């Protein structure tokens, strides 16, 4: 029955409309705002489910396509559609937003309706980013999405929020300016803003290289890659829990999505020529950032650095493909790397969301993120401890949790390229275990460290269900990732076929 509905428009505009409604409700009736906000978040999630169930797994073509002329003078369209790469990310967005709204329930008391409105509007804009097939439409969503996040950190954030928001905004804005230049250049070459037309546009090496580097700045900042990653720990530390969750779970993924939607198919030859750079930066993210994460004194900073290291696996999976080809002379293994990177993105969305929510649970009670202020939490919060250990294990890539799937696939793919690359990538098994479980040891285990810990109460029912749903998702994806891979397969295979053909 949903097949001929404009589903993508619905998932984009339902939360935005909901956000505006909640906003107009003002601060006089916070409880009602929460209920309305939750209703719209749930409704959006429900509307997004047919995208999964009705998705045709046999084709790489865009599905649920909508196209209306927008600005005819420049050949700009309101053009939406999803394939195997974008659809899972949209579901991740709608799923996570529901959890964020629930997680804010009693926690956010200051300007509730504006807080919820920001998240609902942001949800719609992020889904717009994932479903836009017109470059201008994409860019509008891509930039607009920054505004609610800027507000979320700037209004509900911690003491140093102004520095963090400025850093966040300038970094991401700087990157996207170069993206815009690239997109305009592509328009001048193709006479269209359709992203799929860009894919088939023949381009010389210089043009490809410049476009690739411009996009690298935009998406490399977003994901983020070394050395443009330092905005993320600051932003996370200052952001409220919900902001951190969306930032880690969804916004970082937009960088990864950009590489797959723009960089690789538009500039495959440049990507091949610069693969050494991408792989090196990815490995630095895994090893260097892993070591830096080990020494963090602030729980959120630690998880933020852990996110960067995990995103290193994503970019490694995406750009290892050319090295596989150079080493073996075949593209066998390329789809494994790219799919592995995609799985890693979805999995990290769930795990990082869960980790930040866990820190939020502690922060709400103790108003501290310093590891040294904790110790022996398991004594007073046994259920919380169980969840925290589970998500920590998922963060270390334990088989049976979603964290394992992508890492395993990327390591298998990396070995096809080079022994040493696989070896450096695999150090994450040790490093992630070290920084995550050392955190667990210092926070969760041990004797009750102080009176504040002694006074802690275990998770309430709301927190239990939020963490429980995430735990279920993390385990389900770890035990049975096949449905996700089925969705990815046709699109990723097509992408590999596409980049295998030189544009020169």
């Amino acid at each position: 029955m949903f097949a001929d509905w404009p589903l993508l428009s619905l998932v984009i505009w339902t939360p935005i409309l909901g956000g505006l409604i909640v906003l107009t409700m003002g601060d006089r009736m916070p409880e009602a705002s929460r209920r309305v906000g939750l209703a719209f978040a749930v409704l959006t999630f429900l509307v997004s489910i047919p995208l999964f169930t009705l998705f045709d797994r046999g084709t790489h073509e865009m599905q649920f396509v909508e196209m209306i002329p927008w600005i005819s003078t420049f050949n700009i369209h309101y053009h939406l559609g999803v394939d195997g790469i974008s659809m899972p990310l949209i579901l991740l967005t709608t799923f996570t937003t529901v959890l964020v709204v629930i997680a804010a329930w009693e926690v956010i008391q200051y300007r509730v309706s504006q807080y919820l409105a920001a998240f609902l509007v942001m949800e719609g804009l992020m889904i717009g980013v994932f479903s836009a097939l017109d470059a201008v439409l994409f860019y509008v969503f891509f930039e607009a999405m920054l505004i609610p996040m800027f507000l979320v950190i700037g209004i509900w954030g911690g003491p140093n929020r102004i520095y963090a928001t400025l850093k966040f905004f300038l970094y991401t804005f700087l990157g996207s300016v170069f993206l815009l230049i690239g997109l305009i250049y592509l328009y001048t070459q193709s006479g269209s803003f359709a992203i799929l037309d860009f894919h088939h546009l023949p381009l010389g090496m210089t043009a490809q290289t410049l476009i690739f580097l411009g996009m690298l700045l935009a998406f490399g900042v977003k994901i983020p890659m070394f050395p443009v990653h330092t905005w993320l720990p600051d932003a996370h530390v200052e952001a409220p829990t919900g902001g951190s969750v969306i930032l880690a779970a969804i916004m970082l993924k937009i960088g990864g999505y950009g590489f797959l939607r723009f960089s690789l198919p538009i500039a495959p030859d440049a990507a091949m020529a610069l693969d050494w750079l991408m792989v090196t930066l990815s490995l630095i993210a895994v090893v260097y950032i892993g070591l830096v994460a080990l020494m963090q004194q602030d729980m959120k900073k630690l998880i933020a650095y852990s996110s960067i290291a995990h995103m290193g696996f994503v970019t490694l999976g995406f750009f290892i493909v050319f090295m596989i080809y150079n080493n073996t002379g075949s593209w066998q293994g390329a789809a494994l790397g790219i799919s592995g990177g995609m799985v890693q993105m979805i999995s990290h969305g769930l795990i990082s969301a869960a980790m930040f929510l866990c820190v939020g649970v502690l922060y709400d009670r103790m108003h501290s993120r310093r590891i040294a202020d904790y110790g022996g939490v398991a004594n007073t919060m046994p259920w919380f401890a169980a969840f925290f250990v589970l998500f920590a294990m998922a963060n270390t890539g334990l088989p049976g949790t979603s964290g394992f799937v992508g890492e395993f696939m990327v390591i298998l793919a990396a070995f096809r390229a080079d022994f040493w690359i696989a070896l450096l990538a695999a150090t994450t098994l040790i490093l992630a275990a070290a920084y995550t479980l050392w955190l667990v040891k210092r926070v969760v285990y041990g004797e009750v460290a102080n009176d504040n810990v002694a006074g802690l109460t275990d998770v309430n029912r709301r927190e239990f269900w939020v963490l429980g749903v995430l735990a279920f998702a993390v385990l389900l994806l770890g035990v049975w990732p096949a449905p996700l891979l089925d969705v990815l397969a046709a699109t990723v295979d097509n992408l590999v076929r596409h980049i295998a053909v030189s544009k020169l």
Partner: protein
Amino acid sequence: MDTIYLLIVLAPLFGAIAAGLFGQQLGRTGAHTVTVAGVAVSFLLSLVVFWHHVFGGGGVYNETVYTWLVSDGIRFEVGFLIDNLTALMMLVVTFVSLMVHIYTIGYMHEDPGYQRFFALISLFTFSMLVLVMANNFMQLFFGWEAVGLVSYLLIGFWFKRPTAIHANLKAFIVNRVGDFAFVLGIAAIVFYTGSLDYATVFGQAEGMSQAGISVLPGTEWSLLTVACILLFIGAMAKSAQVPLHVWLPDSMEGPTPISALIHAATMVTAGIFMVARMSPLYEFSVTALGFVLIIGAVTAFFMGLVGLVQNDIKRVVAYSTLSQLGYMTVALGASAYAAGIFHLMTHAFFKALLFLAAGSVIMAMHHEQDIRRMGGLRKYMPITYATALIGSLALIGFPGLAGFFSKDGIIEAVSLSEIPGAGIAYVLILLGVFVTALYTFRMFFLVFHGEERFRHAAPGTDHDHGHDHDGHGHGLQGDPKESPWVVTVPLILLAIPSVLAGYFVGPLLFGDFFAGVIHVDETRDVLARLGESYTGVMGYITHGLAMPPFWLAMAGLATAWYVYTKRPDIADNARRRAPWAYDLLNRSYGFDQFNDVVFARGTQRLGQWLWRFGDTLLIDTTLVNGSARVVGWASRQVRQVQTGYVYHYAFAMIIGLLVLIMAFAF
């Protein structure tokens, strides 16, 4: 049969989930009933499976349960491979697990984490079964890490103790070092074969041995050798081989039942099982076999020596486990896989027995673990005494008991082996026999014979860390008591196979029990050569009586008896005469200090430096805030231009106009 296999795996998982998530509702009795029932179902069905495969001519079962994922033409599946090796392992795992479950009812009786403990040991049983029943590398790795996870959770079971949570972190990270290599080994295999399935991979082993990989520039190694060594490094962590053994002694921080189940009988033998399972691969790489052999021999001898100076009853048994795992590893290296598995099985019984007996003693001593404060327990704990005696004799290889058959098999096999390093390995494991007997009976005599030293051990004196476990004071009031039946019955049930398991030596070592499962190259088949002179169990025993291992074991036993019951001053003298040797052993050759200084603190210092210098100073302060400052400075400079005076602007315009005119004019 499919349903049976699924039931065997899922019954303990069900028990674990029930006791773990609904422990509060089930209560203590409910929790142990549901988990014991789950494992009992697994054990009984494993018996059926064993019967079906071994005697019923069941053949090999190799089927997929479900497809985990498919990507790039590689199928990642979950499935079962049931052959004689698997059937044997299933039986050993579920039997020991069942015994430990029952024993736990008594041992953990007073613990507030009762339900959690049962949930975890059932979860462990599930994980271990998944590991041994796997028919592919992905599932093997799942089981491999899952048992590591449960081990982590159980070592840190008493999570308030600083030593316990240090030990479990250490155990997990050391195991991760192994898994790091293990996953690369799997990647090497998938690289060549494009498959994770055992059967497919084994079929391509020969081709893989001829394929090369250039790990270091200018060198070309066999891909198979690289893969086998990487996989074995994984086994070195899991099965605690030097130098990745450091976590096992510390793992004794966990409750005694899991020391028996996980850190003696089953999980630590996963590495042995894995190499035996991969025999079709290892047989194509003499280099890898030689590596395995040497590591095993070094572990067997040198870890046994450390056992001589331990005073904590559990740590003595732990070092003994390390040493015995070394023996199994040596067997693998000598291509006597069947002997390794045979020793794995007998060791599982008698070592679980010894650990549980040690636990029984610890209970009677009110959680005192120092053997110097025990003694004379024989008359108070007759069942524990008798079963511990059986376990100790089996461990030192006393003729007729299980350990004799399996250990003799290994030593004889190594003596025939022609793999490089086999000569040294033979000497080491032969000397190891004397050491084994010495540390085993040192402990035995100190605990059960001699003076009742526990009576006058004053509280608070000579206090080693970690002994005062549950806050019970030292110095017993009244006599020690024998443990309740839930403790003694498992001891008796484990004592039976500790005696009898050895009598399967014929079919297991020299028969066709492992035919088609374990592959041995004909030129290296030492067990087949041994089998030529095998005439039956009695002949094997009488032959053993004439061989050096038997006499070495007796010498060790006699020495222990003389030194620790008659002349205690000899040991003190020896310690005074060679303080450096005692110190070296007591510090376990300094591995811990080395790792602590170089790896633990070194990594932390490196991380600190990278953070402070790289992220904070270089990127943030210099580049990010620096560029902000540059922009700020530049705009301050440029601001000077905007003076607000009309004549300044007019002057600038005139200059500009002149420049433009000049440009156009020329």
